[in-house]
């Protein structure tokens, strides 16, 4: 075992100095000569057929560049998994934020008036559908033959036989709402076009090569004529995974027509209403449980609302389905998952990617099972935790030496669970507030699902530079999580160089290879491993050319690298993903090794419910997780705390109010995210097992913390007030209604009892 110098140390964030001094350049900070500003004219109705478009006389239209679907040189779609989403609607609209026309003008202040001056007439309104239930009824078919984007079925063992053997059959239905990513920097993009070089876009984005692919199809240009550059990105959380392709397409079309650069920056309301949000979900559980509280098997129906187009729904669905069984052993299970279409703007990626939805259901359901069986929330979990050697719902063998019971014990200890549970039980009888404590245990798969990483076949490069330093070339982007820092640490560690001797290339498709999208908690684990081997390639090159010897010092390396570059040229070593040979995945049956590694966690929330205002305050939050090697403790902790804050918002604050498929509260004044005074201190603990796959044993970390808060908090609320709530967000009015309904029921019961 070597001791690491840089891995495991909280070195300064690579781009941190620029961020704290205000020097970082985000897309809206960039100005090009002669630049126009663009705006989007949207449908405003959820579904219909365009009859006529007219332009009011009040606007000097000849000063504007106007783009419609007719101006698209290639295919009118945003190429992603499917090609169903148009870049600009030409005839039909399927949701109220569908782009139809694009306008550009040198004065950005004139654009809002111009957008309003375009009127679009439709055929008499077509009926539209807005909920999972409406979509399932198929009274209106808006997508394919049956409104279904995708289904999966995970089948393990025999579910038929379990019901007879069950001492208890526990059923429950759980639902989660849409959630806005609410990165503080709204979406934005700049495009420029030139016959000889093609399109260049600069933007706030997560996945340069997604944008690259979309622009090639749209503009009908070869790969080398599309260049995508990521600017410093002010938060993303999945919200800048797919929609930037749309904005890049729009700015590019305007720039091609205007022959001038064009910038589009969404204002907050447009960003919230038109871009993707977390998929609303509904999960139904039916579980057979033995007298001792062991799960014998069950059925899980997991359904998500995908909005009007496929976008990433099939992938979100897949992750949600695979996580639906939680960290428990199911001898028999059938998981039926389905993504359906509605006339809302497409829902998309948001940290956790389907798992927070299905795990919310699982962990609420676990508490319900506990109550039915008469066991504590602790005991029911301990009796059902996955053990090494057992298999998950997809029959992936747990090979890690994970001991979830121990993880849970440790979380109980640091949260002082047992004492608090007792104290709250007696104290709860008095006063105008009630305290409660709740547990969530969960897992999160790192990297792409199943064969995903194999298809991606990511490549990274490391370059030896003229000054003797090295530069990492990846399309993996920094948007706060610490990509730059962690990948630099890995390269420095691999080469035995100081952290300062490693720099990161700006993600620019002209220069960096496709290291895959920056999603799915894959960067440290998958891309990190490739950086490590490409870095070693650089040292090997110098050693082969006899400029360097094994056991070299950092100074030796710098001298050798300088010399090599001066006699040859800057040199680059590449590394491509090589799937581990022991990973088996069956895409048809949805069976096998779903993920290269899982992160494991137990979170404990303590809440106080105010019985006058019905508000819930989270008083204490303990987050204990096993994420493999922690490469950078400060960043890792920051990821966990930030994710939990978003999870608290998801549970208790953030409600998207819909009307006819439109978000009605697209402002920070009425869509409420937690402020510093709303949040408790969040206490973070890491356990390290080490893992064979990732760079220096790292697994994914970014998404995990989004999974646990909602069920832990709702379990705590039930503990406090004795009434179950199974739908989030849980707002004060929901609690008021729920408590009122429960007390009515109680008095009805007691009346019946008295007779």
């Amino acid at each position: 075992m070597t001791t690491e110098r840089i891995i495991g140390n909280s070195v300064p964030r690579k781009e941190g100095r620029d961020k704290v001094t205000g020097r970082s350049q985000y897309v809206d900070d960039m100005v090009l000569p002669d630049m126009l500003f663009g705006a989007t004219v949207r449908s405003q109705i959820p579904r219909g057929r365009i009859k006529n478009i007219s332009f009011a006389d009040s606007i000097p239209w000849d000063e504007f560049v106007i783009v419609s679907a007719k101006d698209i040189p290639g295919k009118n779609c945003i190429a992603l998994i499917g090609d169903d989403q148009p870049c600009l609607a030409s005839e039909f609209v399927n949701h109220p934020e569908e782009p139809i026309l694009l306008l550009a003008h040198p004065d950005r202040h004139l654009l809002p008036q111009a957008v309003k001056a375009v009127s679009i007439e439709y055929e008499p309104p077509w009926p539209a559908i807005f909920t999972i239930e409406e979509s399932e009824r198929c009274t209106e078919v808006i997508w394919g033959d049956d409104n279904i984007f995708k289904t999966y079925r995970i089948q393990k063992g025999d579910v038929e036989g379990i019901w007879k053997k069950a001492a208890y059959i526990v059923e429950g239905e759980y639902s989660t709402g849409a959630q806005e990513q609410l990165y503080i920097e709204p979406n934005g993009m700049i495009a420029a076009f030139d016959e000889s070089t093609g399109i260049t876009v600069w933007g706030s984005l997560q996945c340069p090569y997604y944008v690259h692919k979309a622009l090639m199809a749209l503009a009908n240009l070869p790969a080398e004529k599309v260049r995508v550059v990521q600017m410093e990105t002010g938060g993303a959380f999945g919200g800048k995974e797919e929609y930037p392709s749309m904005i890049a397409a729009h700015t590019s079309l305007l720039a091609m027509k205007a022959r001038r650069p064009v910038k589009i920056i969404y204002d907050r309301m447009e960003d919230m209403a038109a871009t993707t949000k977390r998929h609303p979900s509904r999960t139904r559980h039916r579980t057979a449980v033995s007298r001792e509280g062991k799960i014998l098997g069950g059925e899980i129906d997991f359904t998500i609302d995908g909005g009007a187009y496929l976008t990433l729904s099939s992938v979100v669905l897949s992750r949600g389905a695979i996580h639906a069984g939680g960290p428990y052993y199911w001898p028999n299970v059938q998981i039926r998952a389905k993504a359906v279409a509605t006339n809302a703007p497409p829902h998309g990626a948001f940290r956790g990617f389907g798992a927070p939805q299905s795990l919310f259901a699982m962990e609420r359901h676990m508490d319900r099972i506990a109550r039915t069986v008469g066991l504590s929330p602790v005991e029911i979990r301990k009796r059902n935790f996955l053990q090494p050697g057992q298999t998950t719902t997809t029959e992936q063998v747990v090979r890690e030496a994970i001991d979830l019971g121990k993880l849970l014990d440790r979380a109980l200890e640091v949260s002082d669970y047992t004492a608090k549970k007792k104290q709250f039980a007696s104290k709860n009888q008095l006063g105008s507030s009630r305290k409660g404590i709740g547990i969530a245990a969960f897992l999160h798969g790192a990297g792409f699902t199943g064969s995903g990483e194999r298809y991606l076949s990511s490549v990274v490069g490391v370059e030896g530079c003229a000054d003797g330093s090295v530069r990492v070339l990846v399309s993996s982007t920094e948007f706060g999580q610490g990509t730059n820092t962690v990948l630099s640490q890995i390269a420095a560690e691999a080469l035995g160089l100081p952290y300062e001797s490693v720099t990161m290339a700006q993600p620019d498709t002209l220069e960096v290879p496709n290291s895959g999208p920056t999603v799915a908690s894959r960067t440290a684990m998958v891309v990190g491993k490739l950086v490590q081997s490409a870095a070693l390639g650089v040292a090997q090159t110098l050693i082969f050319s006899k400029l360097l010897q094994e056991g070299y010092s950092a100074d030796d390396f710098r001298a050798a690298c300088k010399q090599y570059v001066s006699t040859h040229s800057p040199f680059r070593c590449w590394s491509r993903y090589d799937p581990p040979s022991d990973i088996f995945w069956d895409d048809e049956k949805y069976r096998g090794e779903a993920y290269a590694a899982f992160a494991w966690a137990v979170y404990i929330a303590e809440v106080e419910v105010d019985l006058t205002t019905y508000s819930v305050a989270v008083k204490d939050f303990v987050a204990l997780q096993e994420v493999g090697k922690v490469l950078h403790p400060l960043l890792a902790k920051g990821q966990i705390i930030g994710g939990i804050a978003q999870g608290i918002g998801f549970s208790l604050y953030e409600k998207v109010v819909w009307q006819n498929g439109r978000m009605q509260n697209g402002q920070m004044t009425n869509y409420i995210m937690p402020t510093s005074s709303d949040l408790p201190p969040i206490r973070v603990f890491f356990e390290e097992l080490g893992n064979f796959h990732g760079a220096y044993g790292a697994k994914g970390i970014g998404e995990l913390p989004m999974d646990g808060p909602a069920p832990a908090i709702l379990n705590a609320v039930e503990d406090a007030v004795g009434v179950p709530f199974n739908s989030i967000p849980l707002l004060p009015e929901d609690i008021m209604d729920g408590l009122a309904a429960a007390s009515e029921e109680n008095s009805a019961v007691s009346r019946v009892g008295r007779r």
Partner: protein
Amino acid sequence: MINSRAGYGKIEISFTVNGEPKKLRAYPMERLLDVLRLKLGLTGAKEGCGEGECGSCSVLMNGVLMNSCLIPILQAANTNIQTIEGLAAENSMHVLQQTFLDYGGAQCGICTPGMILAAVQLLDRNPQPTTEEIREGLSGNLCRCTGYNQIIDAVAEAARRRNSA
């Protein structure tokens, strides 16, 4: 309605920005945020919402934290404006910038300039704030990345470093 294209209607505004006197012509209702970003090239103040909710456009005006997206430039006439760019001399850092770096107070960085300026005001008014006072004092500035804990650590540490200096 303001016609921002018309040549008339502009007024002359004098104010001090980061210690330097500035004189420029602008429409009276132009936002201070736009003047700073577009006319003076000071892009450290960011637009997160444009309606006074997020605080990412915060600047100090005569030492008081203001959302520059809500300030018509007219109101900034003859004031003393401080932006993140003027917090420390080139190549040096204010103690809060250093502690934000050391304690993980900046992730994506978009809220950071505003957050640091909010912390400057907080520590000016209350050099030894409790954790609760820090939470309260920064509650007008939204951060979606950090969950605030590490920002609070950074501010508490800055107070310690200052008081022990």
